[in-house]
């Protein structure tokens, strides 16, 4: 530690830290534009100039390291004069028309010029003008306002890992741009809006829609992945105008993903239902809440009386709140219905009894970047959980070994040590080989529960290497992503991953679906476990079994079955054939609009209070940012009334907090085991990896009902749309198909027509058909055989 003095105040500082960091910590304000604590130091704007005793010239505080005994003056005459001079220079080419600038009112340049600028510009000559750039549907540009701080450029290089913006030209002609224009591809691109200190980069959907001072900020939690990024929803009157990050170093630092930033557009979708709907004579009719509730209660009672409670299936979205999950499972179980689930895209539940109570990263989010080795198992982590992807990138930049095993090549923004891309039928075996290698390497007897699988496996060099690296790494983590969880042999994947981890000393992280899978599990939204993971005497059906069984009634909560579930064809058919389907949804669309009987309009997260539990197990409560639209109501209130009308005990909650407290109480009585138990695996009959298989990904902006309705995201470069069938050149040649052709894609008796996208990231004998699109909603299993023919 060195001692320095800032404006007469004695402070201690880490040697080598910059003056500006120390000043920030001490609450001494130094103006700045190019400096940002999360970016490298560029020292190009010179706004942060301060006086340092015994240094001849004033120095930039952002690029001057502290030394012992240094005396810094941030407000001395010399410092002030320099800061004012810099300000004047910066304003020479900057338009002085804040009233027509979208950034006006929340502009760093405006603020700083108020403090350091002059009332009148001495510059009477012509100013330069710069042509705007088209960066795609998310970020708007007004490049004449750019002051060349290069924060956006450094963000692309350092944080996003997709360097797209650069400094083009020289001197007076310098411009920020891409040179060759294209839509920004980074899933974090919107952060440059917050970084840009002026109005050069602003939000395209929000542009000119409101002034900063008209907005009220409401702290909220982003609802699209298990990170639970902290955000502010900005409202004007009752309308959500935009979402911006709320700093939380432990979770999202200062960033949010584009998905979390622009999804608010979905709250205002035309498909929102704002009053209860009843189907009468095949047509939707508006109803009042009382009638809608009565029809629901009567119909459910009728099905239960005639066919039994096990003919009712209750399916919730993993994005529903903790309270909603709890109330609906409480209601169902009180009716003796145990078919409750929130696992929409998983298909293998054979090991569910031996899993830990809730999915977890196995470490705090901040620790992910400190790992020495990260083994991504079927995880397209950047798209699945963009901010976990960011942590992995940080680890990789610090030299961690990132290794991937997947069913297709993903375009990661970090470099991989090795990448194995295998046919889905070979996925388990590839992992088994690594697991076996780990046991062989340690010369340890293979545990009984996996012995049958490992017996027939051959260990190759790659497997040996990965096993050894996992063993040698001080801190290693195996991350199970979507493909691992959705895989038809997910139980094998989980069990082997745990066995591998146990042998090598690695940790296992299960990065689950949606915003609240952990909350759903702890609330008891599972067929075999109640709240706090307490095993139930009766085990109900899982999601896939509920649909496959063709039950008489379905209660769907925030789910669009044909877009959200693993087997959309079967789900749709079940919904179409059921006697009674009630959907508690914010939207009326798709298969439910076609076949539902009652729609109880619930609100999206912006209009309700609730709790999400993230992948680290952090409980994050949020309040409603705005009032419920029309007659739509928060899910927990709808369930409370439903519970009361069904005459179930204990549904008289007055707030969502009360529900949450009740769950806490149950949980406090439980002991939690975090590690998975040993699930007995039998020998695996592997299908041939020479037959054509479907692989499925839910593209980043197709994962849930809200993002699917955000037009800006749908137009973005990484939207994953329009729906197409992707396969590699090799298969394309064999099928005599090429980009843009139409192919007929068949699974079982279902067939659809899809555009062809030739994509060499897909391995041989595989075709990627994305989920979450109505175009692909008639197909069947996510990972299964399929056929493709020319149309």
């Amino acid at each position, binding site marked *: 530690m060195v001692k320095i003095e800032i404006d007469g105040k004695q402070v201690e500082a880490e040697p080598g830290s910059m003056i500006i960091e120390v000043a920030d910590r001490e609450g001494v304000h130094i103006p700045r534009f190019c400096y940002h604590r999360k970016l490298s130091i560029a020292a190009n704007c010179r706004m942060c100039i301060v006086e340092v005793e015994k240094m001849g010239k004033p120095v930039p505080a952002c690029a001057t390291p502290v030394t012992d005994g240094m005396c810094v003056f941030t407000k001395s005459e010399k410092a002030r004069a320099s800061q004012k001079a810099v300000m004047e220079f910066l304003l020479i080419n900057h338009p002085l028309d804040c009233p027509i600038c979208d950034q006006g009112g929340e502009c760093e340049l405006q603020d700083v010029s108020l403090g350091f600028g002059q009332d009148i510009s001495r510059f009477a000559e012509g100013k330069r003008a710069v042509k705007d750039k088209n960066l795609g549907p998310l970020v708007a540009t007004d490049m004449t306002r750019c002051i060349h701080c290069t924060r956006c450029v450094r963000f692309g290089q350092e944080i996003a890992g997709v360097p797209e913006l650069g400094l*083009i030209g*020289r001197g007076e002609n310098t411009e920020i741009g891409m040179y060759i224009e294209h839509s920004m*591809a980074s899933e974090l691109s919107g952060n440059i809006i917050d970084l840009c200190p002026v109005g050069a980069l602003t939000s395209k959907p929000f542009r000119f829609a409101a002034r900063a001072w008209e907005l009220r900020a409401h702290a909220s939690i982003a609802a699209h992945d298990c990170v639970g990024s902290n955000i502010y929803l900005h409202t004007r009157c009752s309308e959500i105008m935009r979402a911006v990050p709320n700093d939380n170093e432990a979770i999202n630092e200062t960033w949010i993903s584009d998905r979390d930033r622009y999804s608010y557009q979905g709250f205002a979708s035309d498909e929102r239902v704002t009053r209860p709907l009843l189907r009468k004579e095949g047509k939707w009719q508006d109803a009042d809440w009382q009638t809608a509730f009565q029809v629901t209660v009567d119909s459910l009672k009728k099905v239960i009386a005639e066919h039994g409670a096990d003919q009712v299936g209750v399916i919730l979205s993993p994005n529903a709140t903790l309270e909603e999950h709890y109330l609906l499972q409480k209601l169902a179980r009180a009716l003796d219905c145990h078919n409750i689930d929130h696992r929409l895209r998983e298909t293998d539940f054979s090991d569910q009894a031996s899993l830990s109570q809730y999915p977890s990263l196995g470490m705090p989010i901040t620790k992910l970047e400190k790992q020495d080795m990260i083994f991504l198992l079927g995880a397209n982590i950047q798209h699945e959980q963009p901010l976990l992807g960011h942590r992995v990138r940080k680890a990789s930049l610090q030299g961690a070994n990132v290794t991937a095993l997947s069913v297709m090549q993903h*375009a990661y923004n970090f470099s991989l040590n090795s990448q194995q891309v295998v046919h889905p039928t070979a996925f388990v075996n590839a992992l088994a080989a690594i697991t076996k290698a780990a046991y062989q390497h340690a010369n340890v007897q293979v545990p009984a529960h996996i012995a049958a699988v490992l017996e027939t496996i051959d260990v190759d060099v790659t497997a040996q290497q990965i096993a050894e690296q996992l063993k040698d790494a001080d801190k290693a983590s195996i991350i199970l992503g979507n493909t691992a969880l959705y895989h038809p042999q997910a139980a094998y994947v989980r069990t082997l991953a745990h066995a591998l981890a146990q042998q090598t000393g690695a940790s296992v992280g299960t990065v689950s679906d949606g915003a609240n899978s952990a909350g759903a599990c702890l609330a008891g939204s599972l067929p075999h476990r109640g709240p706090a993971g307490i095993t139930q005497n009766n085990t109900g059906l899982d999601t896939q079994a509920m649909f496959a069984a063709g039950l008489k009634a379905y209660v769907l909560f925030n789910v669009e079955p044909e877009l959200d579930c693993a087997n959309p064809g079967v789900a749709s058919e079940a919904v179409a054939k059921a006697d009674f389907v009630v959907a508690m949804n914010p939207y009326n669309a798709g298969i439910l609009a076609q076949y539902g009987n009652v729609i109880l309009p619930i609100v999206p997260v912006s209009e309700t209070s609730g709790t999400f539990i993230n992948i680290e197990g952090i409980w994050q409560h949020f309040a409603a940012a705005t009032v419920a639209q029309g007659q739509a109501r928060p899910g927990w209130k709808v369930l409370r009334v439903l519970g009361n009308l069904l005459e179930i005990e204990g549904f008289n909650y007055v707030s969502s907090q009360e529900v949450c407290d009740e769950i806490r109480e149950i949980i406090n009585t439980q002991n939690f085991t975090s590690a998975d138990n040993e699930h007995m695996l039998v020998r695996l009959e592997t299908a041939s990896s020479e037959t054509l298989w479907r692989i499925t990904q839910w593209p980043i902006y197709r994962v849930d009902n809200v993002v699917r309705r955000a037009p800006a995201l749908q137009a973005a470069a990484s939207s*994953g749309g329009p729906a197409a069938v992707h396969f590699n050149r090799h298969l394309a040649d064999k099928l005599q198909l090429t980009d843009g052709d139409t192919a007929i894609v068949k699974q079982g008796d279902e067939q659809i027509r899809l555009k062809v996208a030739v994509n*060499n990231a897909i391995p041989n004998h595989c075709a990627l058909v994305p989920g979450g699109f109505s175009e692909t909603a008639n197909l069947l299993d996510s990972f299964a055989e399929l056929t493709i023919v020319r149309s």
Partner: protein
Amino acid sequence: MALQQLSQTADLLSEASRAKIDMWLKKYPAEQQRSAVIPALHIVQEQNQGWLTTELLDAVADYLALPKIAVYEVANFYSMFELSPVGRHKICVCSSISCMLCDNESIMQHLEKRLGIKMDETTQDGKFTLKRVECLAACRNAPVLQIGHQYHENLTPEKIDAILDGLE
């Protein structure tokens, strides 16, 4: 799902160019390929009649495993790199202070008159381009111009006629 398409651009660079770039690459530590951007662009520009197409910039980026924008930035920054076609002979006339004091104005005028084009233009037949450049670092023999790798100093209109006559 953006995907890394395998680069097929390397064959835009001639074998000779690639060999020369490789030589430069050897001079820098591994992983510091970025340092070779400037020599690589010179080499490739020479291969392509004195100018760089976007495809060639991309090819250089791929060859050096750099983000495209990193190469665009350099190519746009330095005036020695041409991003549109130039004449067979690029005549770079110094416009900086020493040359200015030694009447480079008349040199430019003479060139313009003789070739029938203005500075920063190219003759119809594609033979000559006139380019105004900054100090060529030969001030003591101002005025100065450069054609290819050749400097011509202490210029007079007569000298210029002789130079032009000597060019193919």
